[in-house]
Every structure is written in C-alpha cells, then in structure tokens.
C-alpha cells in the first residue's frame, strides 16, 4: 500500500507499475486522477492552495484504505495527494487500485475518492484574478460518500 501527501507532482503510470511489480495475477488496474480545472465555484481561477493537517492526514487516508481493503477483493492500492499551490491543469490527487477483476477495482477506487473528499483533512482555497476564497464543502460530496453506507 502506498499512501503519500506531497508537494511534488506524481506519475500515475509509475505508481501502477510499482504496485503491480512482478505479479501475474492482476487482471485490472483502475486509476483516477483529480486535476485543477479552470472554473469551479469561482470564475477566473488561477490556482488552488491546498492546506492539510500533517499529523492526521496520512492516518486518515490509511483508515480509508483499510476500509476499502476489507470491503472489496483488491490486491493493493495507492493514494497520492498533493498540497501547496497547484495551478490550473495540474494534478491534485491520484488513486490507483489493482485487483484480479475490474468490478472490485472500479468500486474501491470510487469509494476511496468519495471517502477521501469527505473524511481526510484537506482544505482548498481558490486563488482567482479577483482574490482568494476558501472552497465550501459540497452537499453532493456528502451524498456520494453516504451511498456506501449500508
């Protein structure tokens, strides 16, 4: 399992290769990359500033990853989340899941993103041509996470 919070960019292909290694039993590799798009709540977005709670962030991601491993038949996973100032077009987060079969990998990947967005201590500030503003948590993200609860 590879979980990391870092300022530098990441290479999703390299993450996948590292998870798979010499294994021959992996039939499915699902990866998600989140990127900074040029408009969200704010018009004229220049960059995002990502803050986190260093002592807690990786622990929270570990817990979310453990839940995914207990719930789906997956073989390994990686979560890499960037912090600091990220310009439009840059990658923010990568989740990679490897498994024998695609269904478990797809579902686990989606679960990891939904839980990460609502349970891991990261906060986004939008830097626009007009100034700065903290991003408000979205109800739709809470709903997306809630659908995984029985």
């Amino acid at each position, binding site marked *: 399992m590879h979980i990391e919070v870092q300022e530098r960019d990441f290479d999703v292909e390299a993450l996948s290769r590292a998870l798979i290694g010499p294994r021959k039993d992996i039939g499915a590799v699902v990866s998600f990359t*989140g990127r900074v798009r040029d408009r969200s709540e704010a018009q004229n977005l220049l960059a995002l500033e*990502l*803050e*986190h*709670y260093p*002592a*807690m962030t990786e*622990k*929270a991601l570990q817990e979310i990853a453990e839940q995914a491993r207990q719930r789906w038949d997956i073989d390994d996973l990686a979560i890499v*989340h960037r912090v600091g100032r990220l310009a439009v077009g840059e990658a*923010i*987060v990568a989740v990679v899941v490897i498994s024998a079969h695609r269904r478990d990998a797809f579902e686990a990947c989606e679960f990891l*993103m939904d839980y*990460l*967005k*609502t*349970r*891991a*201590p*990261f*906060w*986004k*500030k939008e830097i626009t041509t007009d100034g700065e503003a*903290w*991003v*408000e*948590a*979205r109800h739709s*993200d809470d709903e997306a996470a809630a659908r995984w609860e029985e």
Partner: protein
Amino acid sequence: MSLQILYFASLREAVGQSSESLDLPEGLSSVGGLRRHLAERGGHWAEAFGQGRLLASVNQQMAEDDHPVADGDEIAFFPPVTGG
C-alpha cells in the same frame, strides 16, 4: 500539562492563529465543553465557534462533542474538508 489546540483553513484565518497551548480549564471534560469555552472569548471566536459547522479531532481522530478531553491531548478544530 495542558491541551494543544490547532486551527486550520478558514478557522485559522478567522481566529488569527494556527495553534495554542491551553491549561485545561476547571470542569472542562469534553470537545463540546471546549467549543463553548472558546466561543466565550467573544468576537471572532464567538462567530467562528457559534455557527456549529466546525469539525473536531482528538489526537488525530475525528471526534464528536461528547468525546472526552484530557491533559496532553492534541485537539484540532476545522471546517468541513474539501480535498480530492
């Protein structure tokens, strides 16, 4: 011994500090009690802690208002998370 309290994101900006050390006030034993104690400082504190949308953690674990607090704990308050 005392509590270490951390503030993040918009809350950190609202109260103008990222952390503080606080001697555990007499009779204070829960996260909810600490919230009320901080709100009683008035001004930006009352505004930030009065609106009820802040989350809390105790020793890096998410915690509800009835979670106990004790000397030496690291308590953090922050707005709902927006990563990913």
